[in-house]
């Protein structure tokens, strides 16, 4: 990082089916919470960056930058960014770029999505815009089925069993019990996950992150200090269409973003104490762990079998409940992941890992077409 970017704090709404709240209600609630917890004045905010994917289709609202800016008394400059499910991570990355360049000193970063106002098949179509419209979506593909293609290929290549996949969701559901913002706060045993209804073979309902509403906001600053800083902010791309990939069982964007982030921070990957991974589907978590280098190809399931992904494990994963159990309001997710890392590092998490110094937030757009990686650490 060219400048020290401090995370002053942030807030999130509850994630879930929030029929009583509109997109702007959610954004306002997150902004109010972030300003209140950090104790800054609203007018300290120089810039507003908001991540959102399908507001135009599911909330009939575009122009979200100014919508958010309008909620502040001084109407600061604002913009909306979009990279499908990585819209939130992209918003944090964009804010870092403004801060590093000196264009801004304090930035309000928001991620927000409202999905449950429209029928299921409309949401399904809207979310498929994250894929290639001409090459992938034309065949009638949906996002669960795109990841099902990677799951089927992974199982075929590495002999992974259906029952193994359930261990990943089980871990997320267990972690979410303590998170008051989570959509599902109930432990679900692996056996029940393996019996949930099929969505896109081999993926079942409980392999998939839910359709959620929600928002999250962060205040980042180079001017005001805190004891948590962003040590690296990286963004990487891979071909949009699955038809142009060499491999179905690895996402090059994750590998690229992480290698660059390690080089930017000067860290060793084994010095990271907690991970927030983009577990949009159970199979994705396994692929990420291999792309990040925490497991050999085809071997990531071992981390879950050995119980290493839990609170007391060697590599705690998604202690917020992840996308699977905390919920996945598309644009909000990447911001909320960084917020959860901040909570772990400042010792305020509901499911607190002991002795955390370094944390990673990994946000994915599409089927690995975009990836953002943020590394956060506490400063003594």
């Amino acid at each position, binding site marked *: 990082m060219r400048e020290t970017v401090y995370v002053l704090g942030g807030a999130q709404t509850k994630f879930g089916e929030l029929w009583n709240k509109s997109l702007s209600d959610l954004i306002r609630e997150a902004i109010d919470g972030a300003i209140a917890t950090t104790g800054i004045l609203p007018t300290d905010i120089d810039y507003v960056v908001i991540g959102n994917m399908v507001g135009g289709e599911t909330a009939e609202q575009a122009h979200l930058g100014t919508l958010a800016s309008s909620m502040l008394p001084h109407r600061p400059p604002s913009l909306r960014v979009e990279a499908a499910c990585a819209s939130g991570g992209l918003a944090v990355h964009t804010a870092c770029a403004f801060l590093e360049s000196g264009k801004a000193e304090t930035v309000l970063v928001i991620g927000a999505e409202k999905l449950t106002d429209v029928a299921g098949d409309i949401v399904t179509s809207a979310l498929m815009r994250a894929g290639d419209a001409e090459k992938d979506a034309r065949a*009638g593909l949906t996002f669960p089925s795109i990841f099902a293609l990677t799951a089927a290929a992974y199982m075929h290549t590495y002999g992974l069993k259906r029952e193994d996949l359930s261990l990943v969701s089980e871990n997320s559901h267990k972690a979410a019990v303590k998170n008051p913002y989570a959509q599902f706060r109930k432990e679900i045993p692996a056996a029940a996950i393996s019996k949930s209804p099929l969505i896109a073979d081999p993926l079942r309902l409980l392999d998939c992150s839910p359709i959620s509403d929600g928002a999250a906001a962060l205040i980042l600053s180079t001017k005001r200090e805190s004891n948590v800083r962003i040590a690296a902010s990286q963004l990487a791309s891979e071909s949009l269409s699955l038809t142009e990939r060499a491999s179905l069982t690895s996402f090059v964007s994750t590998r690229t973003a992480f290698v660059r982030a390690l080089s930017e921070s000067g860290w060793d990957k084994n010095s990271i104490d907690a991970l927030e991974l983009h577990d949009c589907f159970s199979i994705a978590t396994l692929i990420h762990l291999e792309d990040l280098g925490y497991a050999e190809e085809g071997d990531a399931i071992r981390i879950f079998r050995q119980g290493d992904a839990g609170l007391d494990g060697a590599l705690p994963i998604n202690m917020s409940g992840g996308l699977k159990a905390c919920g996945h309001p598309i644009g909000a997710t990447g911001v909320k992941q960084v917020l959860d890392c901040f909570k772990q590092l400042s010792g305020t998490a509901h499911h607190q890992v002991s002795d955390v110094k370094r944390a990673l937030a990994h946000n994915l757009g599409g089927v690995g077409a975009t990836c953002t990686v943020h590394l956060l650490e506490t400063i003594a």
Partner: protein
Amino acid sequence: MDRIPALHRRIKELEKAKLLPGIIESFTVVRHPPAGFGTEPYIVALIALHDGTKVMGQLTRDSSAPTIGATVTPHMRRIRTMSNGLLVNDLKYEVVTMKTMPIFTMTSYVLAVSGPSGVGKTTITRQLMTMFRSYAEQVPIVSTRAAKKNDTEPYVHVSKEEFDALVAKKEIISWTHMPSATELRYYGYRKRDIEAIWKKGKLPIVVTELNLLKGLVDSLGRRAVLSCGLLPPGKSKRLMLSVLLHRLRTRGRDTEEQIVERLKIAEADLKAFTDHAHLFDHMLVNDELGTCVETIRDLVKVGN
């Protein structure tokens, strides 16, 4: 969302598209389709085409069960319905063989005549052979069955060991086993017999049954087989079967037990016409021999 100009561009693109077969790299069943794709589950596969490019494609509904590595071939089918009611066609893919490449590419086609025992396959084929003597030839059947005096089909008799060796070497491209209490009945078609007929510039004719037909379709490709199903006259299945029973009895080739056995197979054959409708291009009712032969002759002329 309905984007009519986008549909126009796709139609232009499809006009120029090479219709290539490919191999399934991965597939899934979409159980919750997006808007416009109906409510019934369908299968989507990532397919590596034979020219090295990849496509995402739906499998046809009549496809056999896909596997990773299976070969598929494209067809134009309805893929979705626009909100204004416009039906949209696009390429869908049919699984043609399991984990095997086509054994040889189509240079011509094969006329397949199938139908239940007693429907008149042999008679019709004989008529066709007379009519087409200079440009059609019947494909011999390789069989483990002992030769009989009154055999009407061209047979090549082999031992079971020889038959298995031919299958293993992929010399036999389609085969079937007919369970029988009295004899070992394996039947098959040799690749070289069909190729030899094509080399002479002639049309190979097979008088066949469901399993053999499936085998031919799998190895030659669906479009390389002009497939005609023959039905006995009769408004109901019961009437059709009594016509067959009458014909089998008057033919006098079989014992009463054999006739009952044949009739059971015939019943299954009739059912196959509806269960495997995609394997048949034309269904003909053999109520008047001359008309039926002429119909097939016309089909072949068009096919040529």
